[in-house]
């Protein structure tokens, strides 16, 4: 047993002695990891909506389908805030009349002519649907009894129900009149403004009924000195749709829209053979339109065109029962002989601007009050451009930046492997710079040439670059800048499938230390 104890003591002693002056453990590992794998194609700098990929080897097209709003709601009739007042008196009756509670003692049906509609001379409305608005009804009574009252706009309905309000008017006292008020929301209310005859215009029918309330405990009387002051206010109306005659409205417009600004091609050469450009005037209202352009400019370069600046009349759209049956169109060929439109397009303009006038009903009330307009369908100008992607360029066409985050690479000795694969049918030169996040801003750069590729035949041109890195250059992280330069000899056709694959990997050994 004693020997065993001695043996155990020896083992412990040896173990402890082996721990003295121990060196830190270290070993070397070899890493090979992907850092960046990026595909840069047309989609990287041309929005999907601007390019139409060529099928079966056809040339891709730059496509612009822009909308120019020249109306902005200015053609829509307006309904100003309106206040209607009425005083109901009892004439010259010589005696006091007991107010009945079994039948109305006031029953008044009226048709009011609303002359302030639209505001355009000669215009009139037959039907309106309001998107929003409210009616405030107020009544004051000098009668010394409680009255039950109802006020209805009999020509106005919401979902088929007549719009109206029922109120209880308190009894007047010696010191104050009976007062009652109420509000009706007129959202989506349909105004039939044709009156009781059905052929009138701007007429609103109303009904006012008053009756003695059963809440009265005693019989009360109305005298020739009594009256009811009725006030009806219409507030905050916005029109959803209207039918009638909107008058001869002339609206100036000055509208601009961004165009193919997101194609940053240096010194571009654009072969416009086969290009198509047209301006379409789309009339969606049931009234005739006349469009007159004073100026059309692309990046402040004025368009020259043989026919564009004349008068363009567009017939009314066909509406039936509130449904748009058929729009009407007028197309203008922007690229016709004598136009400089494509010359302006070659410089890849960013903004198109149109100045002119839009005239409603240039021929007067030819529809006999059947103009129709819905604010959700206003006239638009469509500019459609298709340009085959035959493009030349000279200069930097691509600059990409990739971030290498700081990472722990102890005693790293290796390299960044940069592969560039191109299917662009042009020669490219690539400059790769690795800017280290160290205090000196160390820059390591390499250059490489990429030959001709082809997306159609699947030829992939390849270039390889290698950047030596060490712990000092990889641990702080940094930015890798990849710049591609191109110099085409004239315009080159592209299918839209071309891309450049940038692949960056790190390979090397590092020393792991405990």
């Amino acid at each position, binding site marked *: 047993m004693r020997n065993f104890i001695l043996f155990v003591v020896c083992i412990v002693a040896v173990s402890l002695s082996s721990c003295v002056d*121990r060196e830190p*453990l270290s070993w*070397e*590992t070899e890493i090979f990891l*992907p850092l960046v*794998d990026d595909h840069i194609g047309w989609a990287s700098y041309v929005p999907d909506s601007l390019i139409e990929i060529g099928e079966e080897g056809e040339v891709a097209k730059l496509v612009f389908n822009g909308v120019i709003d020249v109306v902005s709601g200015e053609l829509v009739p307006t309904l100003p805030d309106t206040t209607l007042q009425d005083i109901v008196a009892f004439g010259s009756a010589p005696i006091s009349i007991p107010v009945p509670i079994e039948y109305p003692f006031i029953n008044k049906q009226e048709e009011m002519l609303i002359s302030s509609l639209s505001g355009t001379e000669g215009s009139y409305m037959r039907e309106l649907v309001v998107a929003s608005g409210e009616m405030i009804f107020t009544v004051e009574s000098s009668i010394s009894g409680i009255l039950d009252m109802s006020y209805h706009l009999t020509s106005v309905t919401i979902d088929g129900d007549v719009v109206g309000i029922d109120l209880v008017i308190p009894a007047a006292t010696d010191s104050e009149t009976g007062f009652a008020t109420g509000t009706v929301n007129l959202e989506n209310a349909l105004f039939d403004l044709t009156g009781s005859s059905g052929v009138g215009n701007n007429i609103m029918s109303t009904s006012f009924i008053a009756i003695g309330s059963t809440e009265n405990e005693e019989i009360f009387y109305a005298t020739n000195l009594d009256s009811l002051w009725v006030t009806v206010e219409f507030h905050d109306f916005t029109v959803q749709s209207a039918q009638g005659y909107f008058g001869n409205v002339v609206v100036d417009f000055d509208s601009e829209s961004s165009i193919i600004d997101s194609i940053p091609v240096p010194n571009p050469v654009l072969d416009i053979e086969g290009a198509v450009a047209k301006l379409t005037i789309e009339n969606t209202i049931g009234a005739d339109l006349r469009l007159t352009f004073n100026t059309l400019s692309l990046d402040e370069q004025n368009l020259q065109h043989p026919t564009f600046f004349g008068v363009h009349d567009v017939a009314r759209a066909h509406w039936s029962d509130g449904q748009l049956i058929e729009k009407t169109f007028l197309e203008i060929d922007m690229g016709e002989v004598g136009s400089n439109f494509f010359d302006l397009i070659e410089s890849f303009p960013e903004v198109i601007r149109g100045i002119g006038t839009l005239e409603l009903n240039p021929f007067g009330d030819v529809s006999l009050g059947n103009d129709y307009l819905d604010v959700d369908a206003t006239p638009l100008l469509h500019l459609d451009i298709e340009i085959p992607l035959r493009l030349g360029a000279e200069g930097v066409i691509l600059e990409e930046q990739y*971030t290498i985050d700081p990472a722990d690479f102890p005693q790293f000795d290796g390299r960044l492997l940069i592969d560039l694969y191109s299917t662009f049918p042009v020669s490219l030169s690539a400059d790769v710079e690795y800017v280290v996040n160290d205090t000196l801003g160390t820059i390591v750069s390499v250059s490489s040439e990429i030959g001709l590729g082809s997306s159609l035949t699947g030829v992939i041109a390849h270039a390889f670059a290698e950047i030596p890195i060490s712990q000092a250059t990889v641990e702080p992280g940094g930015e890798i800048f990849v710049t591609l330069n191109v110099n085409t000899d004239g315009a080159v056709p592209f299918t839209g499938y071309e891309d450049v694959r940038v692949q960056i*990997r790190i390979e090397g050994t590092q020393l792991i230390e*405990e």
Partner: protein
Amino acid sequence: MKNIITYIFKSVGLAVLILGSTLTASALTTSSSTIEVFVIEPDSLGSDSIQPKSRKGYSSLTVWANQSSNVITTGFARSLAQGGFISHEILDPVLNRHIGNMGHLGGSAGFEYSWTGKVAEGKEWSLCGTVGSEMLVDTRWTSDAFELMWYGNGGHTGRVDILSGTGMRAALFNRFSLGAHNNFTGQRFEISLIQRLAGAEWSIPYGYFWVSDDADSLDTYIQTEGRIHALNDSTFLPAYGIGVSGKVPLTPVGSALRVEVDFRDLGILFEPEGSKVYWLDEGIATTGLPVLGDSLTWENIIDGNVSTDSLIQTGNSVSRMVLLPTKLSLKLNYELQENLMFSASLTTGGWMPEPLISVGLGWVVSDELSVGVKIKDGGWGGSRPVVWAQYKITDKRFISVSLEDPRGLFINSESSDSFKARGISIRLQRAPD
């Protein structure tokens, strides 16, 4: 004779039942054990044991410590202990030894006192019991995980590195058993109260790492779970369990062949709530395939532009039941000559990743001294020699010493560099009267 035949059938039936239960348990958990098995048992059955007379019982005290690995040599361990640069010259032999793509390292240390009460004349059963404590350590890893850690991925891109199955666990078990010893047959059955005083475990049930040949794509996924069986204030969180242990001798009277089935800690550990648990579920993939816009890359992942399938959770465990580190042994001794004995054993469980097989010879040198040699294979390690000696101190008392891969014990010597196992076991025992 009829009693003996009945006894043999009962014993075989019981052994089969226990074997089946243990194998089921082993399928659910890896298990282990390491108490040295000696060839010569002073408590061996003889014809006179069928009619016990009044006598003192048997007792033994065993202390052991052993460690083995199938790939980690003493030299490699020494290099790690000494520190400094670990070159591929050191690593290559270790990597090449990963046969079956798994590396293991484990062992146990502890003590056990086992006793049998006084045998009353004519009484069939005696009280018996065991008290002991054992530290178990089990680590295992895939060769891919080893290579990824020590070599990196650069040398084998294009290959899927399997990490599943990597893990470690360690625990300290205390046990107290009471039972009955059959004075006629030598059968022994004990009910054990087992305490896991402390423990920790970590594993990767599922994980892989893959970088394509050209390093343009990366795909990795890992699920890992760790548990520390301690409270938040770092105090131990003991768990208690119930198990059964025992042995069933299957020796015909007068035969030179002795067979014995041992089973130990067949039962359940009731783990209380409160262990610290850590889960990580992480997946990263870069396709490298052309898509509109940026593809999935490491850069995008670092920039946070890619939502990785990631889940990190920490918390406290709920109570649960786990299997004890059950161990089952089948031992065979055969007396070749009067002073020469052949022994073999098969042990499984006890957290060992593989069954432990032992084959050897024992030689009775004199009335006082017996010596022997064995070859062990399995457990956490590969083939290794074992030498043992048993010395009769007095008429009833023996001391036995067993050394497993003795040259491996010289840890700080270069002569032991190539050895992967070491162990020592000392047993003091008193034979019954």
